């Protein structure tokens, strides 16, 4: 009886944790995959795996990186399971238009389209930093890079993004 109460409490706590993190995880998966349906599948699968592996989460403060690691693995697995056809970026942008534009300002839609065009190796650290609030050290750990490599990618990501968005880059530094 006591075990059952403890189990229920644990389950409820974990479910609440998933509930609070899910919007950010879904956004992260979306920017990773640039595909809403795939992002939803990846996050759902992540939740199931996280549920099964919850005992391996020793520090609740580290829950976000823990989930992101699972998401990145799941996303990689989705490529193993299915070979995706090469898609034109313009088609990709048009396909996800409801999520990208969503009745917001035109410049936001342009920025989102530019994010779609950014190479994966620049988009991912940028999303981790800006959306997920990760420090350089956390991004480095998550992506298996050095801190210097992360800073270089972040620098290049913003530099490219600003060019893609037609920003005034006259004061931007050279590489």
């Amino acid at each position, binding site marked *: 009886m006591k075990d059952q109460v403890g189990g229920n409490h644990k389950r409820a706590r*974990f479910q609440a944790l998933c509930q609070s993190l899910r*919007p950010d995880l879904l956004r992260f998966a979306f920017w990773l995959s640039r595909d809403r349906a795939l992002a939803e599948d990846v996050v759902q699968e992540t*939740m199931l795996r996280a549920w099964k592996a919850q005992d391996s989460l020793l520090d609740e403060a580290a829950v976000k990186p823990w989930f992101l690691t699972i998401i990145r693995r799941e996303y990689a697995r989705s490529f193993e399971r299915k070979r995706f056809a090469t898609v034109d970026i313009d088609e990709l942008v048009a396909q996800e238009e409801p999520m990208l534009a969503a009745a917001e300002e035109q*410049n936001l839609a342009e920025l989102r389209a530019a994010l779609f065009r950014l190479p994966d190796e620049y988009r991912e650290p*940028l999303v981790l930093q*800006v959306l997920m609030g990760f420090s350089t050290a956390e991004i480095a750990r998550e992506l298996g890079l050095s801190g210097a490599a992360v800073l270089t990618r972040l620098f290049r990501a*913003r530099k490219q993004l600003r060019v893609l*968005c037609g920003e005034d880059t006259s*004061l*931007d530094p050279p590489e």
Partner: protein
Amino acid sequence: MIDCTRYRQAMLAQPHDADPALREHRESCRDCNLFTERLLRFESGLERALRVALPDAAGEVVPLRARSPPRRRSSI
């Protein structure tokens, strides 16, 4: 003392970096101050752009365990 190139490179990598050396340079350089204003405006747009609207049910967590089937009413 860092120069303009180093300052702008550092800011493009971490626009909210609170390093005192960066702040000191910004306060003493008009161009870098202008660069920072533009960059932070861009950054604010970027933050909003990444927060895409989620589908209606996105906040919901699909139950991890299947619900028990509904009990049958006993026929009297």
